[in-house]
């Protein structure tokens, strides 16, 4: 593999691992605070799946990078500007409806992306995607059911879900944007062209939203900059102060 291809693959693996890490951390903020026990357990389990997938993606990133950094180093010792996650996943939990809607918008994309990555020309990427896809099928099923139940629920729950959709829709576009990293991966057959996933995403999301009696607002400009690392929202830094506080306060501390 050429150095350039390796650099693109490393960048791609950071994007994969940072999406699941940041969303997993967000979900774990609910632990012990869920509206009902079953929901609390479900959110914790989904967080666990996502953090487990993070370990696989970031461990592979380290292997590709080859400088001796570990997945823990990547998770705990980088600052905001080095994270490559979608802006969507770093948005704060706010209420339960916002958390569920954020999850739904991500899960639908995540499943389609993993399904395509299972055919990756890079065997190690295909192996992780195949494993993760099985777990994410359950995530999609649950978040879709919850969006329908809350959207088509009471006046209060409907209003909150529509509010969440209005607030989060601007972050959808970033999932389908492409740059030079994507071009290199598409050329090598490692990952699908992001835009290729959009028709299936739009129709899957529309089907659930219609059953949930929610309407997708029209958004003139997508909010982007997370996956490229150009610009994160203010929320990521606050989240990292929680997630990384121990390593920041006691550098190198171990169990």
């Amino acid at each position, binding site marked *: 593999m050429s150095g350039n291809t390796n650099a693109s693959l490393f960048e791609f693996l950071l994007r994969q691992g940072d999406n699941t890490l940041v969303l997993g951390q967000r979900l774990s903020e609910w632990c012990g605070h869920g509206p009902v026990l*079953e*929901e609390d*357990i*479900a959110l914790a*389990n*989904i*967080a*666990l*799946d*996502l*953090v*487990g*997938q993070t*370990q*696989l993606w970031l461990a592979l990133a380290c292997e590709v990078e080859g400088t001796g950094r570990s997945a823990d180093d990547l998770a705990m010792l980088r600052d905001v500007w080095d994270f490559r996650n979608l802006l969507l996943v770093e948005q704060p939990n706010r209420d339960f409806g916002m958390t569920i809607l954020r999850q739904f918008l991500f899960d639908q994309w995540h499943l389609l992306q993993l399904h395509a990555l299972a055919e990756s020309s890079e*065997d190690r990427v*295909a*192996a*992780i995607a*195949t*494993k*993760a896809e*099985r*777990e994410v099928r*359950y995530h999609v*099923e*649950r978040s879709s059911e919850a969006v329908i139940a809350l959207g088509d629920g009471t006046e209060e729950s409907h209003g909150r879900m529509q509010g969440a959709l209005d607030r989060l829709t601007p972050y959808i576009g970033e999932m389908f944007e492409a740059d030079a990293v994507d071009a290199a991966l598409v050329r090598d057959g490692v990952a699908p062209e992001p835009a290729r996933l959009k028709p299936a995403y739009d129709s899957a999301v529309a089907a659930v939203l219609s059953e949930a009696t929610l309407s997708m607002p029209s958004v003139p400009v997508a909010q982007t900059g997370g996956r490229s690392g150009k610009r994160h929202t203010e929320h990521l830094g606050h989240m990292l102060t929680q997630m990384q506080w121990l390593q920041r306060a006691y550098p190198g501390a171990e169990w």
Partner: protein
Amino acid sequence: MVSEGGNFCEKSKRNFGKIPPRPSVEVVWTWLADVPDPEIPVVSVVDMGIVRAVDWDDDTLKVTVTPTYSGCPATSVIAMDIETALRDRGIANVALKTQIAPPWTTDWLSDAAHDKLRAYGIAPPSPAGGPTACPHCGSANVSRVSQFGSTPCKAQWRCESCLEPFDFFKCI
């Protein structure tokens, strides 16, 4: 005293000279079948389909394990338990290898595991995507409480006949 000392020397010489027999992989499999799953101790790591391969590489025993769910916290405990069990049997060099492809599936649970799970109060996985019967009373009148349960591999169900809640081992 002299003769005792002599005997001792002879004994220890005999022991030093003897190379302990390397157990066959079949024997190692039977040992591993005694290592319980840390979260569902009625089934072994072999019943669960977590142990994928056992091979000798010179004097190192290589054990290949596969994680159930990516984030299952039991994975590292299982690796430690396997290593401890083999060291207790006198195997000095154990190398554990984690393999994620092909991914673990509930199809790898042994038939014996299905029976053991049921007896323990956990409905075994079934292709229907839900339990066929309540593990407590056998009633088919069951309903889902949540697709997520006490561990990543289980969902929460309830029996409408005996009204008891129970875990269902999710298909993956």
